[in-house]
């Protein structure tokens, strides 16, 4: 007996949601802090946190994050 149509739809949606959740989990684990600058000609440059510019960018960003504070929960 074939499954009811709404079950098929639910399974499909659950499958996509599971894949998305796994992707986000992997992204959280694998993503490291970075500093990236973009220029008007379309070029971009990454700066490692152990470089001079990178370290300064992280310090400046840290101060801004401090100013912004925590997000208020709705």
């Amino acid at each position: 007996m074939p499954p009811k149509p709404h079950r098929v739809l639910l399974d499909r949606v659950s499958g996509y949601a599971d894949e998305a959740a796994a992707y986000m989990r992997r992204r959280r684990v694998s993503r490291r802090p970075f500093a990236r600058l973009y220029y008007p000609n379309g070029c971009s440059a990454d700066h490692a946190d152990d470089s001079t510019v990178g370290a300064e960018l992280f310090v400046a960003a840290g101060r801004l994050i401090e100013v912004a504070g925590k997000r208020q929960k709705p």
Partner: protein
Amino acid sequence: MADAATTEVAPGDAAEAALAFLGEMSPDLRGGAILDAGGAVLAASGDLERWREDAAVLFTVADRAAERPAEQLHVATEQGEVFALRHAGFAAVVVTERFALASLMFFDMRSTLRDLATACRRVENPPLAGEIGPSTPGEG
């Protein structure tokens, strides 16, 4: 018909509205500031002076990194993410939660600054009374 005087918006008010709109569009946003070309804060969430100082430091460091000034920057840390963008004579600096989508964030910031620039141009050059609204034959 709208009067030209009633359509005028001060840049600070327009920037406040732009920042509020940016906050509505971006649920990950924690706070931000909009600055003019000179680095003065037009609108900010929280302490204006600290936003001015810290944004100035950020742009100074970014500009020192290469021979030409950076147009936009993205710094992702464990505590949150910082996006900064210069566009149309204004600059926007925002702080978001981690893992905010960079392309969407930059798109929203760019469109916000573009709208702000348009609003400010309108203030500088208010339309003449005859230019506002559709012209009605036989009017006047």
